[in-house]
Protein backbone atom coordinates (compact mmCIF):
# COMPACT_ATOMS: atom_id res chain seq x y z
CA UNK A 1 0.00 0.00 0.00
CA UNK A 2 1.22 3.49 -0.77
CA UNK A 3 2.20 5.71 2.14
CA UNK A 4 -0.24 8.32 0.93
CA UNK A 5 -3.05 5.72 1.20
CA UNK A 6 -1.83 4.60 4.61
CA UNK A 7 -2.00 8.17 5.91
CA UNK A 8 -5.44 8.71 4.40
CA UNK A 9 -6.65 5.42 5.88
CA UNK A 10 -5.38 6.27 9.34
CA UNK A 11 -7.02 9.68 9.14
CA UNK A 12 -10.30 8.11 8.02
CA UNK A 13 -10.05 5.64 10.88
CA UNK A 14 -9.50 8.38 13.45
CA UNK A 15 -12.26 10.48 11.93
CA UNK A 16 -14.70 7.56 12.07
CA UNK A 17 -13.82 6.98 15.71
CA UNK A 18 -14.47 10.62 16.57
CA UNK A 19 -17.72 10.60 14.57
CA UNK A 20 -18.91 7.47 16.39
CA UNK A 21 -18.16 9.04 19.75
CA UNK A 22 -20.00 12.20 18.72
CA UNK A 23 -23.04 10.21 17.55
CA UNK A 24 -23.15 8.34 20.81
CA UNK A 25 -22.89 11.59 22.76
CA UNK A 26 -25.74 13.14 20.74
CA UNK A 27 -27.87 10.06 21.28
CA UNK A 28 -27.24 10.17 25.03
CA UNK A 29 -28.00 13.86 25.06
CA UNK A 30 -31.30 13.21 23.27
CA UNK A 31 -32.19 10.54 25.80
CA UNK A 32 -31.36 12.92 28.63
CA UNK A 33 -33.48 15.64 27.02
CA UNK A 34 -36.46 13.26 26.64
CA UNK A 35 -36.20 12.21 30.24
CA UNK A 36 -35.87 15.82 31.28
CA UNK A 37 -39.00 16.80 29.33
CA UNK A 38 -40.90 13.91 30.92
CA UNK A 39 -39.73 14.90 34.36
CA UNK A 40 -40.95 18.44 33.74
CA UNK A 41 -44.40 17.14 32.71
CA UNK A 42 -44.40 14.66 35.55
CA UNK A 43 -43.57 17.41 38.03
CA UNK A 44 -46.56 19.42 36.77
CA UNK A 45 -48.78 16.33 37.03
CA UNK A 46 -47.48 15.56 40.48
CA UNK A 47 -48.29 19.09 41.63
CA UNK A 48 -51.74 18.64 40.04
CA UNK A 49 -52.26 15.28 41.76
CA UNK A 50 -51.14 16.79 45.09
CA UNK A 51 -53.73 19.53 44.80
CA UNK A 52 -56.40 16.91 43.93
CA UNK A 53 -55.56 15.02 47.03
CA UNK A 54 -55.67 18.15 49.19
CA UNK A 55 -59.18 18.87 47.76
CA UNK A 56 -60.13 15.21 48.35
CA UNK A 57 -59.02 15.52 52.02
CA UNK A 58 -60.98 18.81 52.36
CA UNK A 59 -64.08 17.11 50.96
CA UNK A 60 -64.00 14.37 53.54
CA UNK A 61 -63.19 16.86 56.33
CA UNK A 62 -65.69 19.59 55.49
CA UNK A 63 -68.10 17.92 53.04
CA UNK A 64 -67.94 20.81 50.57
CA UNK A 65 -69.27 19.43 47.27
CA UNK A 66 -67.49 22.16 45.29
CA UNK A 67 -64.19 20.65 46.11
CA UNK A 68 -65.24 17.60 44.06
CA UNK A 69 -65.82 19.85 41.08
CA UNK A 70 -62.34 21.38 41.66
CA UNK A 71 -60.96 17.85 41.60
CA UNK A 72 -62.77 17.20 38.32
CA UNK A 73 -61.27 20.38 36.82
CA UNK A 74 -57.81 19.25 37.91
CA UNK A 75 -58.43 15.79 36.45
CA UNK A 76 -59.37 17.40 33.12
CA UNK A 77 -56.27 19.60 33.25
CA UNK A 78 -54.12 16.54 33.99
CA UNK A 79 -55.77 14.57 31.15
CA UNK A 80 -55.21 17.50 28.80
CA UNK A 81 -51.53 17.79 29.67
CA UNK A 82 -51.11 13.98 29.42
CA UNK A 83 -52.70 14.06 25.97
CA UNK A 84 -50.52 16.98 24.96
CA UNK A 85 -47.29 15.35 26.15
CA UNK A 86 -48.40 11.86 25.10
CA UNK A 87 -45.54 11.33 22.69
CA UNK A 88 -42.92 12.60 25.08
CA UNK A 89 -44.23 10.39 27.84
CA UNK A 90 -44.31 7.30 25.61
CA UNK A 91 -40.77 8.02 24.49
CA UNK A 92 -39.60 8.43 28.09
CA UNK A 93 -41.39 5.69 29.98
CA UNK A 94 -43.15 3.63 27.33
CA UNK A 95 -46.78 3.08 26.32
CA UNK A 96 -47.35 0.63 29.21
CA UNK A 97 -46.64 3.18 31.90
CA UNK A 98 -48.77 5.76 30.05
CA UNK A 99 -51.82 3.48 29.94
CA UNK A 100 -51.29 2.54 33.61
CA UNK A 101 -51.23 6.23 34.46
CA UNK A 102 -54.33 6.85 32.38
CA UNK A 103 -56.08 3.88 34.00
CA UNK A 104 -55.31 5.13 37.51
CA UNK A 105 -56.49 8.61 36.51
CA UNK A 106 -59.64 7.19 34.95
CA UNK A 107 -60.39 5.06 38.01
CA UNK A 108 -59.91 8.11 40.21
CA UNK A 109 -62.08 10.25 37.88
CA UNK A 110 -64.85 7.62 37.82
CA UNK A 111 -64.68 7.46 41.60
CA UNK A 112 -65.08 11.24 41.85
CA UNK A 113 -67.99 11.15 39.32
CA UNK A 114 -69.67 8.50 41.40
CA UNK A 115 -69.33 10.56 44.60
CA UNK A 116 -70.69 13.63 42.79
CA UNK A 117 -73.72 11.59 41.70
CA UNK A 118 -74.21 9.85 45.00
CA UNK A 119 -72.65 12.16 47.55
CA UNK A 120 -71.32 10.09 50.44
CA UNK A 121 -68.67 10.74 53.08
CA UNK A 122 -68.68 7.38 54.82
CA UNK A 123 -65.48 5.56 55.63
CA UNK A 124 -65.94 3.04 52.78
CA UNK A 125 -66.18 5.75 50.13
CA UNK A 126 -63.33 7.68 51.72
CA UNK A 127 -61.06 4.64 51.73
CA UNK A 128 -61.87 3.83 48.09
CA UNK A 129 -61.24 7.37 46.82
CA UNK A 130 -58.14 7.76 48.93
CA UNK A 131 -56.75 4.46 47.71
CA UNK A 132 -57.38 5.48 44.09
CA UNK A 133 -55.75 8.90 44.69
CA UNK A 134 -52.86 7.32 46.49
CA UNK A 135 -52.33 4.81 43.68
CA UNK A 136 -52.34 7.58 41.12
CA UNK A 137 -49.95 9.77 43.00
CA UNK A 138 -47.59 6.97 44.06
CA UNK A 139 -47.40 5.62 40.52
CA UNK A 140 -46.68 9.07 39.16
CA UNK A 141 -44.07 9.87 41.79
CA UNK A 142 -42.38 6.50 41.54
CA UNK A 143 -42.18 6.82 37.78
CA UNK A 144 -40.76 10.32 38.10
CA UNK A 145 -38.19 9.17 40.66
CA UNK A 146 -37.16 6.24 38.54
CA UNK A 147 -36.81 8.45 35.49
CA UNK A 148 -34.67 10.89 37.43
CA UNK A 149 -32.46 8.01 38.49
CA UNK A 150 -32.30 6.71 34.93
CA UNK A 151 -31.34 10.15 33.70
CA UNK A 152 -28.51 10.33 36.21
CA UNK A 153 -27.32 6.93 35.07
CA UNK A 154 -27.34 8.07 31.44
CA UNK A 155 -25.41 11.23 32.29
CA UNK A 156 -22.84 9.28 34.32
CA UNK A 157 -22.55 6.66 31.57
CA UNK A 158 -22.03 9.17 28.80
CA UNK A 159 -19.50 11.03 30.96
CA UNK A 160 -17.54 7.78 31.36
CA UNK A 161 -17.96 6.89 27.72
CA UNK A 162 -16.73 10.27 26.55
CA UNK A 163 -13.73 9.99 28.83
CA UNK A 164 -12.87 6.48 27.55
CA UNK A 165 -13.53 7.50 23.96
CA UNK A 166 -11.18 10.45 24.36
CA UNK A 167 -8.36 8.20 25.59
CA UNK A 168 -9.16 5.58 22.98
CA UNK A 169 -8.97 8.08 20.12
CA UNK A 170 -5.80 9.59 21.55
CA UNK A 171 -4.05 6.24 22.08
CA UNK A 172 -5.15 4.88 18.69
CA UNK A 173 -4.13 8.05 16.89
CA UNK A 174 -0.72 7.90 18.57
CA UNK A 175 -0.32 4.17 17.83
CA UNK A 176 -1.38 4.46 14.21
CA UNK A 177 0.78 7.51 13.49
CA UNK A 178 3.68 5.85 15.34
CA UNK A 179 3.25 2.71 13.26
CA UNK A 180 3.16 4.67 10.01
CA UNK A 181 6.09 6.91 10.90
CA UNK A 182 8.07 3.84 12.00
CA UNK A 183 7.42 2.25 8.61
CA UNK A 184 8.45 5.45 6.85
CA UNK A 185 11.55 5.80 9.03
CA UNK A 186 12.53 2.18 8.46
CA UNK A 187 12.27 2.69 4.71
CA UNK A 188 14.25 5.92 4.95
CA UNK A 189 16.92 4.18 7.00
CA UNK A 190 17.17 1.40 4.43
CA UNK A 191 17.57 3.99 1.70
CA UNK A 192 20.12 5.92 3.75
CA UNK A 193 22.12 2.71 4.28
CA UNK A 194 21.93 2.00 0.57
CA UNK A 195 23.02 5.42 -0.57
CA UNK A 196 25.82 5.48 2.00
CA UNK A 197 27.18 2.18 0.74
CA UNK A 198 26.84 3.40 -2.83
CA UNK A 199 28.79 6.54 -1.97
CA UNK A 200 31.46 4.26 -0.52
CA UNK A 201 31.64 2.42 -3.81
CA UNK A 202 29.63 -0.64 -2.87
CA UNK A 203 27.24 -1.06 -5.76
CA UNK A 204 25.58 -4.28 -4.63
CA UNK A 205 21.81 -4.30 -4.62
CA UNK A 206 20.93 -4.01 -0.93
CA UNK A 207 17.57 -5.75 -1.20
CA UNK A 208 14.82 -6.08 -3.71
CA UNK A 209 12.01 -4.14 -2.16
CA UNK A 210 8.81 -6.09 -1.60
CA UNK A 211 6.75 -3.09 -0.50
CA UNK A 212 4.56 -1.49 -3.10
CA UNK A 213 4.77 2.01 -1.62
CA UNK A 214 6.67 5.09 -2.78
CA UNK A 215 9.80 3.79 -1.02
CA UNK A 216 9.57 0.58 -2.97
CA UNK A 217 9.75 2.46 -6.24
CA UNK A 218 12.45 4.74 -4.80
CA UNK A 219 14.55 1.73 -3.76
CA UNK A 220 14.05 0.24 -7.22
CA UNK A 221 15.16 3.51 -8.80
CA UNK A 222 18.25 3.59 -6.58
CA UNK A 223 18.99 -0.02 -7.47
CA UNK A 224 18.83 0.85 -11.15
CA UNK A 225 21.10 3.86 -10.53
CA UNK A 226 23.48 1.70 -8.49
CA UNK A 227 23.65 -0.87 -11.26
CA UNK A 228 24.33 1.88 -13.78
CA UNK A 229 27.00 3.37 -11.51
CA UNK A 230 28.57 -0.03 -11.02
CA UNK A 231 28.65 -0.49 -14.76
CA UNK A 232 30.13 2.98 -15.23
CA UNK A 233 32.66 2.39 -12.46
CA UNK A 234 33.87 -0.65 -14.32
CA UNK A 235 34.32 1.49 -17.42
CA UNK A 236 36.07 4.19 -15.41
CA UNK A 237 38.40 1.67 -13.78
CA UNK A 238 39.15 0.23 -17.21
CA UNK A 239 39.88 3.64 -18.71
CA UNK A 240 41.94 4.54 -15.65
CA UNK A 241 43.92 1.34 -16.12
CA UNK A 242 44.49 2.26 -19.75
CA UNK A 243 45.48 5.80 -18.73
CA UNK A 244 47.85 4.37 -16.12
CA UNK A 245 49.29 2.08 -18.74
CA UNK A 246 49.77 5.10 -21.00
CA UNK A 247 51.47 7.05 -18.23
CA UNK A 248 53.53 3.98 -17.40
CA UNK A 249 54.60 3.54 -21.01
CA UNK A 250 55.41 7.24 -21.43
CA UNK A 251 57.29 7.17 -18.12
CA UNK A 252 59.31 4.11 -19.11
CA UNK A 253 60.04 5.59 -22.50
CA UNK A 254 61.24 8.86 -21.01
CA UNK A 255 63.26 7.17 -18.31
CA UNK A 256 64.96 4.92 -20.82
CA UNK A 257 65.55 7.53 -23.54
CA UNK A 258 68.34 9.34 -21.72
CA UNK A 259 70.58 6.36 -20.89
CA UNK A 260 69.90 4.89 -24.37
CA UNK A 261 70.90 8.20 -25.95
CA UNK A 262 74.05 8.24 -23.84
CA UNK A 263 74.98 4.70 -24.88
CA UNK A 264 74.19 5.54 -28.50
CA UNK A 265 76.34 8.66 -28.53
CA UNK A 266 79.24 6.90 -26.83
CA UNK A 267 79.01 3.99 -29.26
CA UNK A 268 78.96 6.43 -32.22
CA UNK A 269 82.07 8.18 -30.94
CA UNK A 270 83.75 4.85 -30.18
CA UNK A 271 83.28 3.71 -33.78
CA UNK A 272 83.86 7.09 -35.41
CA UNK A 273 86.90 8.11 -33.38
CA UNK A 274 88.33 4.62 -32.72
CA UNK A 275 91.68 5.37 -34.35
CA UNK A 276 92.21 8.67 -32.66
CA UNK A 277 91.26 7.35 -29.19
CA UNK A 278 93.89 5.85 -26.94
CA UNK A 279 93.34 2.68 -24.94
CA UNK A 280 92.32 4.52 -21.74
CA UNK A 281 89.73 6.61 -23.63
CA UNK A 282 88.19 3.50 -25.15
CA UNK A 283 88.04 1.70 -21.81
CA UNK A 284 86.54 4.79 -20.18
CA UNK A 285 83.84 4.95 -22.87
CA UNK A 286 82.97 1.28 -22.44
CA UNK A 287 82.88 1.66 -18.66
CA UNK A 288 80.46 4.54 -19.09
CA UNK A 289 78.34 2.39 -21.43
CA UNK A 290 78.33 -0.26 -18.71
CA UNK A 291 77.29 2.45 -16.21
CA UNK A 292 74.36 3.46 -18.39
CA UNK A 293 73.21 -0.14 -18.73
CA UNK A 294 73.22 -0.37 -14.92
CA UNK A 295 71.00 2.71 -14.93
CA UNK A 296 68.60 1.01 -17.37
CA UNK A 297 68.73 -2.11 -15.24
CA UNK A 298 67.70 -0.03 -12.23
CA UNK A 299 64.73 1.41 -14.07
CA UNK A 300 63.62 -2.02 -15.21
CA UNK A 301 64.00 -3.38 -11.66
CA UNK A 302 61.89 -0.54 -10.26
CA UNK A 303 59.32 -1.21 -12.93
CA UNK A 304 59.21 -4.90 -12.02
CA UNK A 305 58.92 -4.02 -8.34
CA UNK A 306 56.05 -1.78 -9.23
CA UNK A 307 54.18 -4.16 -11.47
CA UNK A 308 54.71 -7.17 -9.24
CA UNK A 309 54.67 -5.98 -5.63
CA UNK A 310 56.38 -8.31 -3.24
CA UNK A 311 54.11 -10.38 -1.03
CA UNK A 312 53.71 -8.58 2.26
CA UNK A 313 55.18 -10.49 5.21
CA UNK A 314 52.56 -9.61 7.83
CA UNK A 315 53.66 -9.60 11.47
CA UNK A 316 51.94 -8.27 14.56
CA UNK A 317 53.31 -4.82 15.28
CA UNK A 318 52.82 -1.66 17.28
CA UNK A 319 52.31 1.12 14.75
CA UNK A 320 53.72 3.82 17.07
CA UNK A 321 56.95 1.85 17.43
CA UNK A 322 57.17 1.59 13.62
CA UNK A 323 56.63 5.35 13.28
CA UNK A 324 59.26 6.10 15.93
CA UNK A 325 61.77 3.78 14.19
CA UNK A 326 61.05 5.45 10.85
CA UNK A 327 61.56 8.91 12.36
CA UNK A 328 65.12 7.88 13.33
CA UNK A 329 65.78 6.99 9.68
CA UNK A 330 64.65 10.38 8.37
CA UNK A 331 65.73 12.60 11.28
CA UNK A 332 68.96 13.63 9.57
CA UNK A 333 67.15 14.71 6.39
CA UNK A 334 64.61 16.64 8.48
CA UNK A 335 67.36 18.38 10.49
CA UNK A 336 69.30 19.39 7.37
CA UNK A 337 66.15 20.85 5.83
CA UNK A 338 65.46 22.78 9.05
CA UNK A 339 61.98 21.32 9.45
CA UNK A 340 60.16 21.19 12.78
CA UNK A 341 58.40 17.89 13.51
CA UNK A 342 55.46 17.26 15.75
CA UNK A 343 54.33 13.75 16.70
CA UNK A 344 50.77 13.05 17.80
CA UNK A 345 50.73 9.34 18.56
CA UNK A 346 47.64 8.11 20.43
CA UNK A 347 48.46 5.65 23.18
CA UNK A 348 46.85 2.24 23.65
CA UNK A 349 46.19 1.63 19.97
CA UNK A 350 45.45 -2.00 19.06
CA UNK A 351 48.29 -3.95 17.48
CA UNK A 352 48.02 -4.49 13.75
CA UNK A 353 49.27 -7.05 11.25
CA UNK A 354 51.69 -5.32 8.87
CA UNK A 355 54.89 -5.80 6.93
CA UNK A 356 56.96 -3.45 9.05
CA UNK A 357 59.60 -2.96 6.38
CA UNK A 358 57.05 -2.06 3.70
CA UNK A 359 55.13 0.32 5.97
CA UNK A 360 58.44 1.99 6.87
CA UNK A 361 59.12 2.34 3.15
CA UNK A 362 55.75 4.07 2.71
CA UNK A 363 56.35 6.38 5.68
CA UNK A 364 59.87 7.29 4.48
CA UNK A 365 58.36 8.01 1.10
CA UNK A 366 55.63 10.28 2.44
CA UNK A 367 58.00 12.06 4.83
CA UNK A 368 60.59 12.60 2.07
CA UNK A 369 57.89 14.04 -0.18
CA UNK A 370 56.67 16.27 2.64
CA UNK A 371 60.17 17.55 3.43
CA UNK A 372 60.84 18.23 -0.26
CA UNK A 373 57.57 20.13 -0.56
CA UNK A 374 58.51 22.46 2.31
CA UNK A 375 61.03 25.23 2.48
CA UNK A 376 63.21 25.81 5.52
CA UNK A 377 61.17 26.42 8.67
CA UNK A 378 58.29 24.16 7.64
CA UNK A 379 56.23 22.05 9.97
CA UNK A 380 55.79 18.30 9.65
CA UNK A 381 53.09 16.52 11.66
CA UNK A 382 52.86 12.77 12.02
CA UNK A 383 49.96 11.31 13.96
CA UNK A 384 48.33 7.99 14.71
CA UNK A 385 44.88 7.28 16.04
CA UNK A 386 42.01 4.83 16.00
CA UNK A 387 39.84 5.08 12.89
CA UNK A 388 36.33 6.42 13.05
CA UNK A 389 34.75 2.96 12.94
CA UNK A 390 37.19 1.48 15.50
CA UNK A 391 38.26 -1.16 12.99
CA UNK A 392 41.26 0.64 11.58
CA UNK A 393 44.24 2.76 12.53
CA UNK A 394 44.79 6.08 10.83
CA UNK A 395 48.27 7.46 10.25
CA UNK A 396 48.51 11.08 9.19
CA UNK A 397 51.51 12.74 7.52
CA UNK A 398 50.86 16.45 7.18
CA UNK A 399 53.15 19.14 5.83
CA UNK A 400 52.98 22.92 5.57
CA UNK A 401 54.47 22.82 2.09
CA UNK A 402 53.50 24.29 -1.25
CA UNK A 403 50.62 21.84 -1.74
CA UNK A 404 49.49 20.07 -4.88
CA UNK A 405 47.37 21.82 -7.49
CA UNK A 406 43.88 20.33 -7.86
CA UNK A 407 44.46 19.14 -11.43
CA UNK A 408 47.46 17.05 -10.34
CA UNK A 409 45.75 15.59 -7.27
CA UNK A 410 43.87 12.75 -9.06
CA UNK A 411 47.14 11.56 -10.66
CA UNK A 412 49.25 11.65 -7.55
CA UNK A 413 49.26 7.84 -7.18
CA UNK A 414 49.73 7.17 -10.91
CA UNK A 415 52.99 5.46 -11.80
CA UNK A 416 55.68 7.81 -13.19
CA UNK A 417 53.64 10.84 -12.26
CA UNK A 418 55.91 13.34 -10.57
CA UNK A 419 55.63 16.98 -9.62
CA UNK A 420 59.33 17.08 -8.89
CA UNK A 421 60.53 17.22 -12.48
CA UNK A 422 63.50 15.02 -13.26
CA UNK A 423 64.44 14.58 -9.61
CA UNK A 424 61.59 12.17 -8.98
CA UNK A 425 60.94 8.85 -10.64
CA UNK A 426 57.19 9.18 -10.10
CA UNK A 427 57.10 5.71 -8.59
CA UNK A 428 57.29 6.46 -4.85
CA UNK A 429 53.63 7.21 -4.21
CA UNK A 430 52.52 4.62 -6.71
CA UNK A 431 54.55 1.92 -4.92
CA UNK A 432 53.25 3.21 -1.56
CA UNK A 433 49.71 2.95 -2.85
CA UNK A 434 50.34 -0.65 -3.91
CA UNK A 435 51.79 -1.54 -0.49
CA UNK A 436 48.86 -0.04 1.43
CA UNK A 437 46.33 -1.75 -0.87
CA UNK A 438 48.21 -5.02 -0.28
CA UNK A 439 47.62 -4.47 3.43
CA UNK A 440 43.88 -4.14 2.67
CA UNK A 441 44.23 -0.54 3.75
CA UNK A 442 43.59 2.79 2.14
CA UNK A 443 45.69 5.87 1.42
CA UNK A 444 44.14 9.28 0.77
CA UNK A 445 45.47 12.72 0.01
CA UNK A 446 44.12 16.17 0.70
CA UNK A 447 45.95 19.26 -0.41
CA UNK A 448 45.59 22.99 -0.67
CA UNK A 449 48.11 24.90 -2.74
CA UNK A 450 50.10 27.19 -0.48
CA UNK A 451 48.74 25.61 2.70
CA UNK A 452 50.04 22.06 2.65
CA UNK A 453 49.31 18.43 1.96
CA UNK A 454 47.94 15.72 4.23
CA UNK A 455 48.32 12.02 3.50
CA UNK A 456 46.15 9.66 5.52
CA UNK A 457 46.90 5.95 5.66
CA UNK A 458 44.22 3.63 7.00
CA UNK A 459 45.31 0.15 8.08
CA UNK A 460 42.82 -2.48 9.26
CA UNK A 461 43.03 -3.58 12.88
CA UNK A 462 43.90 -7.26 13.25
CA UNK A 463 40.76 -9.35 13.28
CA UNK A 464 40.58 -12.40 15.51
Amino acid at each position, binding site marked *: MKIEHKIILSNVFNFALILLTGLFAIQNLNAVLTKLRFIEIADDLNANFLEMRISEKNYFLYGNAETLLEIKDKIKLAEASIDKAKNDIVRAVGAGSLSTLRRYLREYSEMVDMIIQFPSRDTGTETMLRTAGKNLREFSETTTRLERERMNVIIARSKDFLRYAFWCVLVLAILVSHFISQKILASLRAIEKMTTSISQGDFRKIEESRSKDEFGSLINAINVMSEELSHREGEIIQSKKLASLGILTAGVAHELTNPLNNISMMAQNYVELYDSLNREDRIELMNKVEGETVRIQEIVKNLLDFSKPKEANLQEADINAVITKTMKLVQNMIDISNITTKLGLDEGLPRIYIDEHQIQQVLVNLITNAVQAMSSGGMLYIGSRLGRKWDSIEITVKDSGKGITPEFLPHIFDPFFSTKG*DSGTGLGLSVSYGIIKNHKGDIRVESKPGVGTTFTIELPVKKN
Partner: protein
Amino acid sequence: MDRYRVMIIDDEKIVGDMAKMSLEREGYVVETFLNGESALIRLKEERFDVVVTDLKMKGVDGMEVLKTVKELYPDTKVIMITAFANLDTAIEALRGDVHDFFPKPVKIKELKVSIERALSGR
Protein backbone atom coordinates in the same frame (compact mmCIF):
# COMPACT_ATOMS: atom_id res chain seq x y z
CA MET B 1 90.23 32.38 -39.45
CA ASP B 2 88.83 32.20 -35.90
CA ARG B 3 87.53 28.85 -34.78
CA TYR B 4 83.74 28.59 -34.34
CA ARG B 5 82.46 28.48 -30.78
CA VAL B 6 79.79 25.89 -29.90
CA MET B 7 77.92 25.67 -26.59
CA ILE B 8 76.29 22.39 -25.49
CA ILE B 9 73.64 22.42 -22.70
CA ASP B 10 72.19 19.13 -21.40
CA ASP B 11 71.57 17.88 -17.88
CA GLU B 12 72.93 14.50 -19.00
CA LYS B 13 76.71 14.99 -18.69
CA ILE B 14 77.54 12.31 -21.28
CA VAL B 15 75.67 14.21 -24.03
CA GLY B 16 77.93 17.23 -23.60
CA ASP B 17 81.02 15.10 -23.24
CA MET B 18 80.37 13.06 -26.39
CA ALA B 19 79.39 16.08 -28.50
CA LYS B 20 82.46 17.90 -27.30
CA MET B 21 84.71 14.89 -27.98
CA SER B 22 83.47 14.70 -31.56
CA LEU B 23 83.17 18.41 -32.34
CA GLU B 24 86.61 19.37 -30.97
CA ARG B 25 88.18 16.99 -33.47
CA GLU B 26 86.44 18.99 -36.20
CA GLY B 27 88.12 22.12 -34.95
CA TYR B 28 85.29 23.70 -32.95
CA VAL B 29 85.79 25.36 -29.59
CA VAL B 30 83.24 23.57 -27.37
CA GLU B 31 81.97 24.44 -23.89
CA THR B 32 79.47 22.21 -22.05
CA PHE B 33 76.95 23.10 -19.36
CA LEU B 34 74.66 20.93 -17.23
CA ASN B 35 71.90 23.49 -16.76
CA GLY B 36 70.39 26.59 -18.34
CA GLU B 37 71.37 28.96 -15.54
CA SER B 38 75.14 28.50 -15.79
CA ALA B 39 74.90 28.56 -19.60
CA LEU B 40 73.11 31.93 -19.56
CA ILE B 41 75.75 33.42 -17.27
CA ARG B 42 78.46 32.30 -19.69
CA LEU B 43 76.48 33.57 -22.70
CA LYS B 44 76.32 37.06 -21.20
CA GLU B 45 80.13 37.04 -20.99
CA GLU B 46 80.81 35.77 -24.47
CA ARG B 47 79.12 35.10 -27.78
CA PHE B 48 78.82 31.58 -29.21
CA ASP B 49 78.17 30.79 -32.89
CA VAL B 50 75.97 27.78 -32.20
CA VAL B 51 74.08 26.76 -29.05
CA VAL B 52 72.93 23.14 -28.79
CA THR B 53 70.48 22.79 -25.91
CA ASP B 54 68.25 20.17 -24.36
CA LEU B 55 64.64 21.33 -24.51
CA LYS B 56 63.39 19.97 -21.20
CA MET B 57 65.52 20.87 -18.21
CA LYS B 58 64.84 21.69 -14.61
CA GLY B 59 64.92 25.45 -13.99
CA VAL B 60 65.88 27.42 -17.09
CA ASP B 61 64.73 25.21 -19.99
CA GLY B 62 65.63 25.11 -23.71
CA MET B 63 62.96 27.63 -24.74
CA GLU B 64 64.25 30.17 -22.22
CA VAL B 65 67.83 29.64 -23.43
CA LEU B 66 66.61 30.17 -27.00
CA LYS B 67 64.86 33.42 -26.06
CA THR B 68 67.91 34.84 -24.28
CA VAL B 69 70.30 33.80 -27.05
CA LYS B 70 68.11 35.51 -29.67
CA GLU B 71 67.97 38.67 -27.53
CA LEU B 72 71.71 38.79 -26.97
CA TYR B 73 72.97 37.47 -30.31
CA PRO B 74 70.33 37.36 -33.08
CA ASP B 75 72.84 35.69 -35.45
CA THR B 76 73.60 32.77 -33.13
CA LYS B 77 71.94 29.54 -34.25
CA VAL B 78 70.14 27.36 -31.74
CA ILE B 79 69.74 23.59 -32.12
CA MET B 80 67.32 21.76 -29.83
CA ILE B 81 67.59 18.19 -28.64
CA THR B 82 64.99 16.43 -26.56
CA ALA B 83 64.05 13.09 -25.13
CA PHE B 84 60.40 13.87 -25.81
CA ALA B 85 60.25 13.21 -29.50
CA ASN B 86 56.74 14.24 -30.28
CA LEU B 87 55.30 16.58 -32.86
CA ASP B 88 54.03 19.17 -30.38
CA THR B 89 57.40 19.87 -28.83
CA ALA B 90 59.02 19.94 -32.27
CA ILE B 91 56.50 22.48 -33.52
CA GLU B 92 56.88 24.57 -30.39
CA ALA B 93 60.66 24.55 -30.75
CA LEU B 94 60.68 25.36 -34.47
CA ARG B 95 58.21 28.20 -34.02
CA GLY B 96 60.70 29.87 -31.71
CA ASP B 97 63.29 30.49 -34.46
CA VAL B 98 65.15 27.24 -33.91
CA HIS B 99 67.67 26.21 -36.53
CA ASP B 100 67.19 22.48 -36.09
CA PHE B 101 65.55 19.91 -33.88
CA PHE B 102 66.93 16.50 -32.80
CA PRO B 103 65.13 13.82 -30.92
CA LYS B 104 67.20 11.54 -28.70
CA PRO B 105 69.06 9.32 -29.41
CA VAL B 106 71.09 11.95 -31.24
CA LYS B 107 73.04 10.98 -34.35
CA ILE B 108 76.34 12.85 -33.90
CA LYS B 109 77.06 12.86 -37.65
CA GLU B 110 73.73 14.52 -38.34
CA LEU B 111 74.35 17.00 -35.56
CA LYS B 112 77.69 17.91 -37.11
CA VAL B 113 76.07 18.39 -40.54
CA SER B 114 73.41 20.59 -38.96
CA ILE B 115 76.05 22.74 -37.23
CA GLU B 116 78.03 23.06 -40.48
CA ARG B 117 74.90 24.16 -42.29
CA ALA B 118 74.11 26.67 -39.55
CA LEU B 119 77.51 28.25 -39.99
CA SER B 120 77.69 28.11 -43.81
CA GLY B 121 75.23 30.96 -44.16
CA ARG B 122 77.66 33.57 -42.81
